[in-house]
């Protein structure tokens, strides 16, 4: 019986319902807008913070790779590194990092003093060790990069110099000097093909800068060890541990800030919406006096809250994505991509908070007789 009445009256009833909702928003535009603003701000703050938080690891990870290699691949005790190691390491890396081979010998200068000469791939070492301060990188065969302490020993006037290794000599052309403040300053670097042709010594170390989090780096280590079982693959603890710690603390600080901001925005949203509903106790009283059921009135305010939450969340998401992208551009000079995984969280959160803040005052109002409210008490 009740069901049939509802069915026949559905059209005009729902029309009235929608009309009340729209009029409610249009007539009190100022109030409705400030309520919407509160939802938008909360949703935007949540979206921006969560997006930045999720992206910060990847963005800072790029910065941390400036510290250079976090994995070294060396031969096991008393063995030589197999020539295929580099290609196998590169295959295991699959583009998620760089691998650079190094070969070393102790050669002697024309006056017989010992000096370390290293052979490497110049273009990839440039990417791996971005802190190398180099005046000019070697390009041609026979060019050498001379450490600034070694420079004083081998070529005082930038002239070509001769080096000897096991009776074989070579002539190198110093095109640039290198400064690092570490062991590299005492060495001479030449391109690997030149080095092998002169000394016949193959690379003994492959330094790898693998991208990603600690877990991803560990997975990369496992993959390399699997691809090249006869060599030793070790993490560079100094780099890996410090990075993990700095990254962890930064993320925690960011998370703490995010939580604080989201809580503030959410509480202000509750305050705003509660005041909004309380302010309309007259509407509530009129509806009840005209015979609306508790459920209908409750449903009306709930629908209002849900639509406010939904519209606010969508607008807020768009603004929040914009803010996150601005932060990415301004700080990392790279875009922070919108994370659509954040959207459902923000959407559900906004609606839940809006519903909660609309229901709270209704619980209070339900206890009061409509007549008392309409009399203005």
């Amino acid at each position, binding site marked *: 019986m009740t069901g049939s009445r509802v069915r026949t009256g559905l059209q005009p009833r729902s029309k009235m319902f929608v009309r009340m909702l729209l009029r409610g928003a249009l007539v009190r535009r100022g109030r409705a807008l400030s309520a919407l603003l509160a939802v938008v701000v909360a949703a935007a703050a949540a979206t921006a913070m969560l997006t930045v938080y999720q992206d910060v690891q990847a963005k800072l990870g790029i910065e941390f790779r400036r510290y250079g290699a976090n994995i070294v691949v060396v031969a096991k005790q008393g063995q030589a590194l197999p020539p295929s190691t580099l290609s196998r390491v590169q295959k295991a890396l699959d583009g998620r990092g760089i691998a650079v081979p190094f070969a070393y010998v102790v050669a002697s200068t024309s006056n017989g003093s010992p*000096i370390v000469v290293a052979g490497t791939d110049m273009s990839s070492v440039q990417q791996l060790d971005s802190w190398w*301060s180099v005046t000019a990188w070697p390009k041609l065969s026979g060019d050498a990069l001379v450490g600034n302490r070694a420079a004083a020993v081998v070529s005082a006037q930038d002239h070509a110099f001769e080096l000897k290794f096991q009776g074989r000599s070579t002539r190198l052309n110093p095109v640039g000097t290198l400064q690092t*403040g570490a062991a590299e300053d005492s060495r001479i670097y030449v391109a690997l093909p030149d080095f092998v042709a002169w000394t016949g010594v193959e690379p003994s170390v492959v330094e790898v800068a693998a991208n990603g989090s600690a877990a991803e780096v560990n997975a990369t280590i496992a993959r390399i060890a699997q691809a090249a079982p006869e060599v030793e693959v070790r993490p560079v*603890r100094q780099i890996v541990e410090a990075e993990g710690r*700095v990254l962890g603390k930064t993320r925690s600080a960011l998370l703490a800030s995010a939580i604080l901001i989201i809580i*503030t925005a959410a509480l202000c949203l509750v*305050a*705003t919406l509660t005041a909004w509903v309380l302010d309309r106790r007259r509407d509530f009283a009129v509806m009840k006096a005209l015979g609306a059921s508790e459920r209908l009135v409750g449903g009306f305010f709930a629908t209002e809250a849900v639509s406010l939450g939904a519209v606010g969340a969508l607008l807020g998401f768009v603004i929040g994505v914009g803010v996150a992208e*601005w932060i990415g551009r301004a700080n990392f000079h790279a875009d922070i991509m919108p994370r659509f995984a954040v959207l459902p969280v923000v959407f559900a959160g906004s609606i839940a908070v809006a519903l909660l803040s609309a229901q709270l005052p209704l619980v209070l109002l339900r206890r009061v007789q409509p007549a008392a409210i309409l009399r*203005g008490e």
Partner: protein
Amino acid sequence: MFGRLLFESFRRQQRRKLLAGVAIALGVSVATAIIAVATDIGDKINRELRGYGANLVITPQADTLDVEIGGVNLKPPSDGAFLSEADLPKIKGTFWRNNILGFAPLLPVRVKLKATGHEQDVELLGTYFNKQLKYGQDTFTSGVTKTNSWWRVNGAWPDDNSHDVLLGERLAERVAVSAGGTVDINGSNTRVAGVLSSGGAEDEQIVAPLAMAQEIIGHPGAVRRVYVSALTKPEDAFARRDPRTLAGPTFDRWYCSPYARSIAYQLGEAIPHSHVEQIRQVAQTEGTVLARIKGLMLLVTLAALLASGLAVSAAMATALFERRSEVGLMKALGAAHRSVAALFFAEAALLALLGGGVGFFSGGILAREIGRSIFGSQISVQPVLLPVILAIAALVTFGGSAIAVRRAVRVDPAIVLRGDA
């Protein structure tokens, strides 16, 4: 009359005022905490970045070329020049001594290690572990426990005045000696205090107290190089200028900035016949990483301030909309727009002051808790921040009130009082 109106408004609407005050206090405490964290994070992260190890190295000025491959120095141990151990405490006498978190001298020597029957040539590093030193009246400790935080020891760290050593973990495995055992170094029986895991070349070496290495090569007081871990400021264009070309106040400003270069310059002055250089891998990179993290927190703080400002404004505006009948009544009784606005702004100012004050102190507590739980050290709020925070709180509260008050005073009192607005 104005004072009474203001007083009564607070007395009679306690709950409502409390709510507005809480909203402001909440916004202010979050703003205070985030500003405090953002201003302090540079210093905190800088300390964490010291986990990458020393960023400066002191070497003898007239040193011969190092012949080093994979962390093993092939140069004859007696070759080249040395620094004097007696000069090391002077590091703590430089202008930026408080920024120098630690230093570790190094003296590599070759020794013959005999264990489980066979003899081998290995490198022994002489260094400080946690040595007590004295400069003037100050005593302090320094050594690898401070500079190389990634070193892990299974067993105990040796005492600096003993003849105990650490064995690198690969070496220990090869000679089958564990912590507490003994090895034969150059014919004398030596206790192994612990096994060192460093993830670097030290895993194949012996690490011993400095005095022991000096005895082995017969050079008392000799140090090959010193690693220094210092808190520095990221390098900028001014830092890269050559101190020799600077004069007067510009030189003083360069000298008194904690750039890696100026600290290196001061260390060079303090230690005779030395050459100090920054380890670019650590020094240069930490500058960029630090700048990124600081920039990120700055932008997040800006966004947070904006969001909490808007949220508090919205809450204030809604709270005031409720009181339009009050405005109507005042206007009907003949109050001018100006006096109505003055009353509401005075209320807002009072709320901002009270809420802001409470928020500032709770924000300070919040910041301290964040500092303790994340960084394990205090984050303190500068008292200078209080007026700034209160001004922001007043601005935000006024902003929220202004919109509501303007709308309220514009409406005809009769309509408002009838309840039609």
